């Protein structure tokens, strides 16, 4: 028996094959996630967007009845829809990725399933839920005459995609850090609560004093929300945003997130 070692050949999988495997795995995990979260009872996977819709409707109703001032002439319902939907988009993704390894670690016995696939499936679901909820409620509100069609739909889509990217990078970063440090898992929830009122959901940046504007514009998601509102209400809304700044910060976060993800993947105990 000879087990002596020659310089080994590295077996590699062509990129297209790998992509196909990953597509299949993420698809399988999405189905599993849907069954695991909502099961086959009552409306099943429709909760995916019903839940964010209920949240958004409740917030819109609350803000309308309390006649909350937000510093612009836009109807409060439209303001709440654009603002709160954006929060759901960037906040739910990290929420689902925090401590995501434990409930999934049994799947790690299957070599094709990587941590990135688990995050990928969860991100895809969260993003779809928030997006479908935003679209359905927009259609409803427009149909009811509570708001007009977006003035520049493409700008809305662009702002939404930027926010989704920001949410993904934040999710991967916070998610993988939470596997390494318990404290991240504990602190993320209060932090996300504090970030909500600061995120631009409940105010127009132009209504703030200049010092406050500068401070608040340090937060990347504010730029995304402002961009979405400019797309919706362009002529009635004076938006403040810097796409390059938001993209830059998000890019750096993506990079750090990927590095953490790689570290955690290497140290997972199946």
């Amino acid at each position, binding site marked *: 028996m000879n087990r002596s070692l020659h310089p080994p050949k590295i*077996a590699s999988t062509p990129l297209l094959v790998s992509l196909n495997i990953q597509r299949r795995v993420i698809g399988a995990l999405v189905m599993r996630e849907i069954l695991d979260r909502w099961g086959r009872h009552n409306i099943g996977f429709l909760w995916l967007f019903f839940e964010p819709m209920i949240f958004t409707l409740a917030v819109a109703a609350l803000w309308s009845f309390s006649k909350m001032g937000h510093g612009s002439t836009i109807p409060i319902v439209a303001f709440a829809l654009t603002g709160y939907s954006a929060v759901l988009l960037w906040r739910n993704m990290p929420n689902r990725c925090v401590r995501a390894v434990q409930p999934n670690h049994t799947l790690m*016995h299957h070599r094709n399933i990587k941590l990135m696939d688990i995050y990928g499936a969860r991100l895809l679901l969260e993003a779809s839920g928030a997006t479908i909820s935003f679209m359905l409620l927009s259609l409803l509100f427009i149909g009811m005459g509570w708001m007009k069609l977006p003035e520049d739909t493409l700008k809305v889509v662009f702002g939404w995609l930027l926010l989704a990217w920001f949410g993904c990078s934040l999710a991967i970063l916070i998610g993988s850090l939470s596997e390494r440090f318990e404290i991240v898992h504990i602190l993320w929830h209060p932090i996300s609560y504090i970030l909500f009122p600061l995120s631009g959901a409940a105010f127009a940046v132009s209504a703030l004093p200049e010092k406050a504007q500068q401070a608040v514009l340090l937060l990347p998601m504010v730029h995304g929300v402002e961009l979405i509102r400019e797309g919706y209400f362009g002529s009635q809304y004076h938006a403040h945003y810097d796409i390059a700044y938001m993209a830059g910060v998000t890019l750096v976060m993506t990079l750090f997130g990927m590095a953490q993800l790689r570290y955690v993947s290497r140290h997972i105990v199946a």
Partner: protein
Amino acid sequence: MIELVNVTKRYPVKGGERTILDGINLRVRPGEKLGILGRNGAGKSTLVRILSGGERPSAGRVIRNMSVSWPIALSSAFHNHLTGLDNVRLICRVYGADFENKLEFVREFSELGIYLREEIVTYSAGMRARLAFAISMIIEFDCYLIDEVVAVGDSRFHEKCQHELFERRKERGKVIVSHDPNFIRKYCDDVIVLADGKLHEFSSVEEGYEFYDRHMKL
């Protein structure tokens, strides 16, 4: 061929790290039946998980030129809050297999009947083991990793498993962890012994056992 090159695995423990595998080199040839011996905690299961790819080594390389199974009959590789059927479907999706065909086999082999539609949390240990083994047999691999599979189910089911794994898949490679010397003698061409993080190889199974017995007495 599966090849481990200078593979080291360390786990964090309180106040530092513990080295379980220390620069191990190993080749598993196509069709080879390899037994792994070692005391409790010697790193046998760790080695199996590294071969399967479920865990990555802390240092060194793993090269796989053939397909390798997940550790067979491991009921923990399945999801507790899904039904038996959902787990079959999940595995078929992940490995790109046709669900309808495979389901027939699982139904027949596991003998779980209507319980396939129930969540796995409601299963007894024996039912879990039956499902786990049946699912392990729906995807074909060049090499199967077997971590203490012999204790599965009652003796009749046990025989069915042996038949499925060692008769029908006689020509496939197998890496077997077991404390049962007769089992290893019966099915393995080679054995290795893990001790103190190092791997020991032998020219015959009997030599391996001699070493193992001596080492156990130390």
